[in-house]
């Protein structure tokens, strides 16, 4: 079976949707040449009416997509830098997301916003290294963070077909992940349904995006001492609470690893919900970026603020110590 990279999975999903639905169009910066490699070749295949290179006017072209969507198109916007989402927070959260409710359901805004290379790329410093998926979950915008090529394909396709705005984060730490798979078996993955990557009985590690690979590595390293279940929500909003409850029913212990800043990150919400509503036999833990993290440039400093494998090992051992 062929090896498919995460990046190629995104490319394939976008190409398949452009082919399937003539309403789908792509907006973004440098997408004609495909600097992020997700849109490579699409301009040549679909032409400038469907693959539109945008001037550096993120706020305008984000709401331009809203207008096009209301008028019947299904735009997909590529953003080169995760921090650009701060610039267009108004256009996504305050305009596109609110239109359906504010108009009494008269219209939807089917736009997909995607970030190939979110989170730290190492060495890109303070304004290119954010990972703001928790912000969109907080606002109630559908938010997905696929961890594998199969899920990147399936969730991207679903996001594009969804009638609401959806933000898709492709973590830079996931871009190189490759999977041996049957291309014919690639299929849409529903929003709001998590995935157990590895079953276990002692502790549930909830990992998001590229940190799924970190969690799997930790589960391997600790395999002799602890049986770790790795639960990947895949969609940060809506979150698969029943899936998490089912996992905790098996393990009763919880560690979350989340590349958000600590205050108000999704990790805090997961821990709070588990504490309120689910079966826990030990106090839960979460590994996050620090409060208010701004990633500094130097590689040692950049890495010092990101959730790490060692931190996760310590937390897992702590949570199971009385078992």
């Amino acid at each position, binding site marked *: 079976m062929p090896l498919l990279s995460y990046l190629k999975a995104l490319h394939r999903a976008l190409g398949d949707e452009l082919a399937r639905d003539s309403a789908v169009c792509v907006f973004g910066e440098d997408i004609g040449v495909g600097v992020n490699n997700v849109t490579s070749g699409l301009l040549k295949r679909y032409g400038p009416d469907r693959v539109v290179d945008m001037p550096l006017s993120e706020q*305008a*072209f984000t709401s*331009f997509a*809203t207008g096009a969507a209301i*008028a019947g198109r299904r735009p997909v916007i590529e953003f080169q830098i995760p921090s650009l989402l701060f610039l267009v927070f108004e256009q996504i959260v305050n305009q596109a997301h609110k239109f359906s*409710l504010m108009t009494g*359901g008269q219209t939807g805004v*089917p736009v997909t916003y995607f970030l190939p290379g979110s989170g730290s790329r190492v060495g890109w410093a303070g304004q290119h290294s954010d990972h703001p998926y928790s912000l969109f979950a907080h606002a109630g915008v*559908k938010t997905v963070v696929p961890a594998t090529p199969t899920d990147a394909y399936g969730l991207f396709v679903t996001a594009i077909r969804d009638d*609401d705005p959806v933000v898709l984060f492709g973590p830079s730490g996931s871009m190189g992940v490759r999977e041996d798979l049957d291309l014919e078996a690639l299929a849409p993955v529903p929003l709001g349904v998590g995935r157990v990557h590895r079953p276990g009985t002692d502790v549930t590690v909830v990992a998001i995006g590229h940190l799924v690979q970190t969690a799997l590595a930790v589960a391997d390293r600790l395999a002799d001492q602890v049986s770790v279940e790795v639960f990947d929500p895949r969609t940060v909003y809506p979150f698969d609470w029943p899936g998490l409850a089912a996992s905790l029913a098996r393990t009763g212990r919880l560690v979350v690893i989340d590349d958000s800043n600590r205050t108000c990150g999704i990790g805090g919400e997961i821990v709070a919900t588990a504490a309120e509503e689910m079966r826990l036999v030990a106090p839960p833990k979460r590994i996050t970026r620090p409060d208010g993290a701004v990633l500094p440039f130097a590689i040692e400093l950049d890495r010092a603020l990101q959730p790490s494998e060692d931190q996760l090992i310590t937390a897992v051992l702590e949570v199971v110590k009385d078992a």
Partner: protein
Amino acid sequence: MTVAERYRTMRLIRRFEERAIELVRAGEIVGGIHPYIGQEAIAAGVCAALRVDDVVTSTHRGHGHVLAKGADPARMMAELAGRENGLNRGRGGSMHAADFSLGIYGANGIVGAGGPIATGAAWAMRQSGGDRIAVSFFGDGAVNQGVLLETLNLAALWRLPVLFVCENNGYATTLTVAAAVAGTITGRAAAFGIPASTVDGMDAEAVYEAATVAVEAARGGAGPAFLECLTYRFDAHHTWEHKAKVRYRTADELASGRARDPLDVQGARLSEVERTALDQAVEATLEHAVAFALDGPHPDPAGALDHLYRDGLRGRSGTGARMVI
């Protein structure tokens, strides 16, 4: 559309606003409104040049545009009163009133926000063939919003069928144009190569003629145009001013600003008999609208998050209880 029809639209807007202000004072409309009184000639003149399948985006001061584009005054009033029989089922209110079946992409609570939405719609409509166009209404305050300037660039770059209508009423809330705008308003459009002109926004026929030229050019593929309409806001920025008594316009200025009433300018083109008949018809329409609004059912609080998602998705409630789809 005729001179008389444009007068009727203006009278409808004027009386709608006056009745709405009464309902604000009576506590039937909560949150207040941004009255359009004094600016009626612009909405009436521009929308008279449009077809029902054209698109408009509006502003926080949006009642005039929504009515002039053809929205039902009764459902509009019910929306302001927060009733289930309102245009938006009481979910939007004054600042978000919309009717997509008439191309009304909504009033909007953020200054300048409608510009890119109208322009994206214009792009999509051109792509699908036909000759529909979009109009974005905004005030003088919006000409200092970056997103609107970005939008002018996109519209000009791709020669999109969109008309930008700036209603220059002299004030962004309380800040004068002189204190806020470097250069000129039309100069901003001209800088992008967009044909821009300034018209008398108190004269519906002047606005109609200018809009017709721009709209027909846009339909024919000539690209965007920009109209600055000089006008005066007769009433408050928002009805809270009626109580707050914010002082930024002198009594003399108000008197001279209100001296030339666009309804009288247009009304003078009709016979007394004609004008009286139209006025009476508008009164009857608004009697019905107010009754329709006040008789309308209040929304059920259980439906406060209805329509948030197209697929009926429900998040958790504020107490953590599971909500049912």
